[in-house]
């Protein structure tokens, strides 16, 4: 969906800088961020945490039929990436074709356009992943 101005703005620090949270009570890391630790709930102590952006590919696919706004990018590779601190997140794998990607490949986060609202609307930026050269 076209994200509204305020909806997109709220998530800028997390999307631009891979900012999540950590529960200092049980040492669980959350990206995307959580304000309630599922294990500790109200006993949890949630603090911000900046992730390195490095991780490995946990699973992936190549999208051939994109949702509204992504039609011109098709085909593109999407992955669930396991960050080195533990949590997993969903993002596009850039500068790679399907055959270039395997489960376990190391990747790093890069700053890219995620969606563009036509010629006059907002550009929504965020994170995608790129294979790390060995």
């Amino acid at each position, binding site marked *: *969906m076209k*994200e509204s101005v305020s*909806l997109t703005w709220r*998530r800028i620090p997390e999307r631009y800088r891979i900012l999540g949270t950590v529960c200092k009570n049980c040492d669980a890391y959350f990206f*995307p961020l959580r304000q309630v630790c599922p294990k500790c709930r109200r006993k949890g102590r949630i603090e911000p945490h900046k992730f390195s952006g490095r991780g490995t590919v*946990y*699973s*992936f*696919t*190549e*999208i*051939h*039929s*994109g*949702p*509204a*706004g*992504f*039609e011109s*990018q098709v085909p*593109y590779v*999407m*992955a*669930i990436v396991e960050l080195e601190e533990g*949590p*997993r*997140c*969903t*993002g*596009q794998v850039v500068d790679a074709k*399907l055959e270039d990607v395997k*489960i376990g490949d190391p990747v790093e986060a890069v700053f890219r356009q*995620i*969606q563009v609202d036509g010629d006059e609307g907002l550009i*929504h930026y*965020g994170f*995608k992943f790129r294979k790390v050269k060995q």
Partner: protein
Amino acid sequence: MGMRKVAIIGAGMTKFGEHWDRGFRDLVIEAGIKAIEDAKLTGNEISAGYVGTMAPGSLVGQEHAGALIADYMGLNPVPITRVEGACASGSLALRQGMMAVASGMHDIVVVGGVEKMTDLSTADVSEILGGAGDQEWELFNGITFPGLYAMMARRYMHEYGAGPEMLAAAAVKNHRNGAMNPYAQFQKEITLTDVLNSKTVADPLKVLDCSPITDGAAAVVLAPLDKAKDYMKNPVEIVASAQASGTLALHDRPTLSGIPAAQIAAQKAYAQAGMAPQDIDVAEVHDCFTIAELMAIEDLGFFPRGEGGKATLEGKTAIGNGRVVAVNTSGGLKAAGHPVGATGIKQAVEITWQLRGQAGKRQVPDAEIGLSHNVGGSGATAVVHIYRKVGA
């Protein structure tokens, strides 16, 4: 528990498909009337209603679906409530209706499920369905539902060595069943090769691995079991209703090759019914994508983890003699179609027909215990119901 037993005394549905000439209210009214007539009610007996529908606001600009249905079914001032849990909306509505009757608060309750999906483009519908996942962290980044299930398929194949033909086998079986179901969207059989050669939607899932975009509605009428026999001689008792929640986003799930919420809902349902997987004769499971059926029959305990693919390929879930359990006799979501909110109720309708011996060419012989399994999103909601032929 002090709760009453609940039975289904009427069932009906529209044909599922692309209904250019019928809108949201036309579909739900048709299904509602069929169910009420099947129960041989006048309509005055109805005490409350529940309707499962995922996204009428986005798909047709219409919220407040409960009020619309009460009005246009001629049921004012009967209270009708909309229930939503993405693709599990139908089963959630069934569960709410069942609890309303079981608690004693209402006697005769009509439960419907409906979705009108073809008034928008495929890309727009794909985006709206994406709202069943995590809008900020999945959909926004460009994933689609086929993409999410494709990632589950890739993990499943990686962990258990399953091949794409095992996934395709589920689609082939469901089309064979659908060809025997006059209400199914697709009534044409397909082959393994057809599936494997079809266009890729999200690798490794192809077009024929994916359930379609469909319009349709289904409805059932519920009554307390001890009054059901006043209305019909072969009511079907709902002996278990269980629901569990899982993480909204697939990336927060501990595993991709199974749906934990479905496993938990299944365990709770079997416990409630005092039954085990081997007691189930016929099951309607949530095959939004072929991989979902393979994982479902494992989550439900019909086959050990990782063996659902092989079992499907070997015909163990077909209606024939080699079966362990007949799965998706209606054609499933794949061949019957998947009007999102209607699916959970369609599953209840199909099980009702099977247990009453009214399933025509796709009848499972001697079916006495049935199960429906309905999942929301990529597994954030799972609902399992178990049904018993009364007198069984």
